[in-house]
């Protein structure tokens, strides 16, 4: 049983480096970290199943064995639970037959009762068991029919195939989001530890013992938690799968685009995985300083909305018009206005909002920029959500856009044109937004045919969060990069900054022009590029709320 206090010690930027001897070669590694992490810093991957950097160490898979020098000479020990001490001697599979034999043996044991059903398994292609088999074993099976496998599964769910053979527990419905195929489970305990030590709600456990043990929820209790889909990520095999992705795509077909969770102010790092012009799933992307390895179910399922109810053309009154026509109409309306209210959005990138500011600058005193959101703000859950549904609220603040929607409401009579960019005011608070309908020309830029679009006189479709490149600043003042996945519902859609640039004749040709404008307004951005922000983001000085 893993002890919940066995959190792994991970290398940090200020870890003290010490010298150890790995396979006879001296190497500098961070002191006190476990050997899996330490060896990774010098480019040696140690195969493992149960170890996970963001979970307590369980040490039960025994795959990561290395030899270390102990009181009785070199002896096998598990790398995930062996801390680095200065001067220690380590032998990996490169130099030690004992390590090779042990890893090969563990591989044989893992596979002894594991079904060979990779062709129909969702995990194939990203399966730790497949990877480690190729790395450590690649030996034919010694198992034969008279000996037989003992497929895992609860006595209640055992499934007989068409030949009458006991195939273990198939397709066990654990709850609203997750399905368990018990016979593929290798009992690494990761899902149990995730629910207990990260989610804080112990909903899974390993029932029974020995090779007849199996993962289970408690009797008559479902697996039902806002973070429960993370167990499908930590599962090293195809035992736990999410209903949303089960049997949807082969994973090796998926292209991956690194971006940021658009549904929450923490900006959990995610990967949008797409194929054939569709987003098929969202996976968490590890960032120790933001979301560790976790994302909430609602963040994970955000991709579903990318293909629902999209606004792919312009709407003039109730009739559809081509986008280009709608954009030029936008320019005419704003230029002809007595006074225009431009509403920025924390749901869009810094670049999109920079374009709005740039246009306001050209329009001078005839335009005023408002910002903010009427969405309800919750509290952080301590895992991967800040509770703030506006992902770029801090970005607006840095750009100097005030939280002023209520002020706009109070002064609504001053304006004859309203431009709302990617900010669904009518859904957030319909009764407050209703007072804005006093403005005669209401123009909405939106990715979806939402309530704001319905309440507008002119609407223009724009790209959604997964289809644009740009930056957002999270609640902790960390600037993070969004990338565009090739999943546009219509090839004509442009990002909001480009629509605004065209309508306002800004002459911008790429999001870098927009970023440069943002840099002119935000001193702490000076010197940064998309490349230096990188996939993990950068903390901006003095930007935390």
């Amino acid at each position, binding site marked *: 049983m893993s002890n919940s206090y066995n959190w792994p010690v991970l290398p940090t930027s200020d870890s003290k480096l010490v010298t150890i001897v790995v396979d006879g070669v001296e190497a500098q590694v961070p002191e006190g970290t476990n050997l899996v992490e330490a060896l990774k810093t010098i480019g040696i991957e140690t195969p493992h199943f149960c170890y996970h950097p963001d979970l307590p160490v369980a*040490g*039960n*898979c*025994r795959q990561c064995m290395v030899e270390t020098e102990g009181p009785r000479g070199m002896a096998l020990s598990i790398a995930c639970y062996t801390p680095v001490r200065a001067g220690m001697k380590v032998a990996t599979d490169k130099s030690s037959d004992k390590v090779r034999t042990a890893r090969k043996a563990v591989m044989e044991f893992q596979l002894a009762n594991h079904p060979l059903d990779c062709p129909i398994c969702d995990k194939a292609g990203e399966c730790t068991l497949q990877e480690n088999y190729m790395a450590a074993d690649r030996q034919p099976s010694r*198992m*034969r029919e008279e000996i037989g496998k003992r497929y895992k599964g609860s006595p209640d769910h055992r499934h007989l195939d068409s030949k009458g053979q006991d195939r273990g527990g198939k397709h066990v419905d654990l709850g609203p989001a997750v399905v368990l195929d018990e016979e593929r489970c290798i009992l690494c305990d990761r899902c149990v530890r995730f629910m207990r030590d990260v989610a804080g709600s112990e909903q899974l456990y390993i029932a029974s*013992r020995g090779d007849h043990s199996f993962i289970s929820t408690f009797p008559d209790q479902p697996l039902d938690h806002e973070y429960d889909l993370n167990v499908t990520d930590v599962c090293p095999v195809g035992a736990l799968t999410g209903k949303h992705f089960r049997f949807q795509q082969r994973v090796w077909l998926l292209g991956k685009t690194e971006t940021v969770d658009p549904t929450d102010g923490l900006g959990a790092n995610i990967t949008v995985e797409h194929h054939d012009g569709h987003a098929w799933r969202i996976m968490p992307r590890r960032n120790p300083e933001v979301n560790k390895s976790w994302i909430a179910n609602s963040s994970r399922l955000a991709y579903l909305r990318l293909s629902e109810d999209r606004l792919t053309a312009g709407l003039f009154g109730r009739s559809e018009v081509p986008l280009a026509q709608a954009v030029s109409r936008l320019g005419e309306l704003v230029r002809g206005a007595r006074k225009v209210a431009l509403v920025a959005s924390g749901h869009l990138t810094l670049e999109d909002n920079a374009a709005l500011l740039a246009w306001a600058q050209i329009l001078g005193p005839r335009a005023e920029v408002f910002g903010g959101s009427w969405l309800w703000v919750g509290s952080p859950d301590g895992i991967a959500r800040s509770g703030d549904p506006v992902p770029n609220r801090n970005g607006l603040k840095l750009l100097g856009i005030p939280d002023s929607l209520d002020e706009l409401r109070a002064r609504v009579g001053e304006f004859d044109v309203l431009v709302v960019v990617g900010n669904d005011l009518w859904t957030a608070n319909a009764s407050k937004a209703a007072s804005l309908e006093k403005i005669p020309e209401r123009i909405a830029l939106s990715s979806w045919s939402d309530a704001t679009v319905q309440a507008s006189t002119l609407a223009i479709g724009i790209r959604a969060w997964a289809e644009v490149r740009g930056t957002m600043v999270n609640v902790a003042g960390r600037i993070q990069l969004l990338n565009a996945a090739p999943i546009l519902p219509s090839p004509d859609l442009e990002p909001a900054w480009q629509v605004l640039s065209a309508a306002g004749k800004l002459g911008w040709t790429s999001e870098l022009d927009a970023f440069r404008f943002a840099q002119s307004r935000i001193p702490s951005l000076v010197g940064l590029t998309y490349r230096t922000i990188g996939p993990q983001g950068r903390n901006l000085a003095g930007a935390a709320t």
Partner: protein
Amino acid sequence: MATLTVTQNFGKGAADISVYRSLGGYASLGPRLFDLSQFELIDLVTRSGLRGRGGAGFPTGMKWSFVPRNTPKPVYLVVNADEGEPGTFKDHVLMLEDPHRLIEGMIACGWALGVRTAYIYVRGEFLKAIETLNAALKQAYEAGILGENILGSGYSLDIYVHRGAGAYICGEETALINSLEGYKGQPRLKPPFPAVSGAWASPTCVNNVETLMALPWILEHGPAAYSALGTPKSGGTKVFSVSGDVKRPGVYEIPLGTPLLEFLESPEWCQGVLGTLKGVIPGGSSSPVLTAEESAKANMDYESLASLKSMLGSGAVIAFNDTRSAVGMLASLTRFYAHESCGQCTPCREGTGYADRILKAIVRGEGRDGDLDTMLDLAANFSYTTICPLAIADAWPIENFIGKFRSEFDALLASNAGHADSRVTSDFRPGAFW
């Protein structure tokens, strides 16, 4: 009549406190114990040569010395009465016959380590022993021997009986602690060891029933008298539970170093072997089996059995004669270990069951050439690669039964007409994925 240090009250009704006291019980709860400092008491136990009687034979005084002094955390004493090794039944009888001696030993250990709360973790199946212990504890509390300020000494100790849920692995001390805490009984990663961080992350001493029951005698007669009973390296006496093909199976206390055959043949103890002796498992089912020739050379102490590459273990002697099938005996042992593997570490979880299924196929007459080598290979592969020694406890019988009685296994393999067929069957069934 050999000197008895643990079982002298057997058959005398000592489960009742008045009988126990009339036999000299609880005499140590006075100056004899409480005038000793913690250091002096641990030193006394170290000098007595007492070693843990649960199976590993670790020196008791040294184990106690690992428990930190003056910690802000409570120190717990946990008595390991989860006697589950096949063939072992001494602790059960000890608790039934003389529960007050256990309590007296626990008070001594508690005094040495500064324990305020102690637990007796009893195997779930031992219902009668649990009743006996609870009755004895009640009597002891009523007599002021437990609770606040024991007999005016200023020392206080509470003892609770915890009933296990019936798992062999809970005899492993960290699994026992997990089980005691209410978790699943699975061994913990070490370090930290229980002496530093055991039950509820506090210093914890886990001792076997018999170990603690030797303490009253040692306190009465002194460490020199105790160590004089055994061999120079194995001090004192040991309680053995004898089963199998002997005329009088049972629980016997003998001085360490007694020759094995003398023990089996002696009219005072086992009164001889039924039939012709084929072999002996000297220390519980996991200890490597001895052939009849090896048995003739064995003395019942830690060193002699170690020199024969076996071990004294928990002191469960299983003697068997030439009518017993070595294959059948090993099959029941592998079945036991496959059933009792806690399922935590991969090699043990999958390996013990794998080896068991191979042996089952051999017993069914479906064995093939190479199966024994596969079994030996598996046994070697799941030894020393897991958190606790349960896998080794399965590997030793496999290695020794096959190694020492190989002809019986080979004969069974040869009885399968297809024993030389290639490993994978030719009529591979489509649809069967493996």
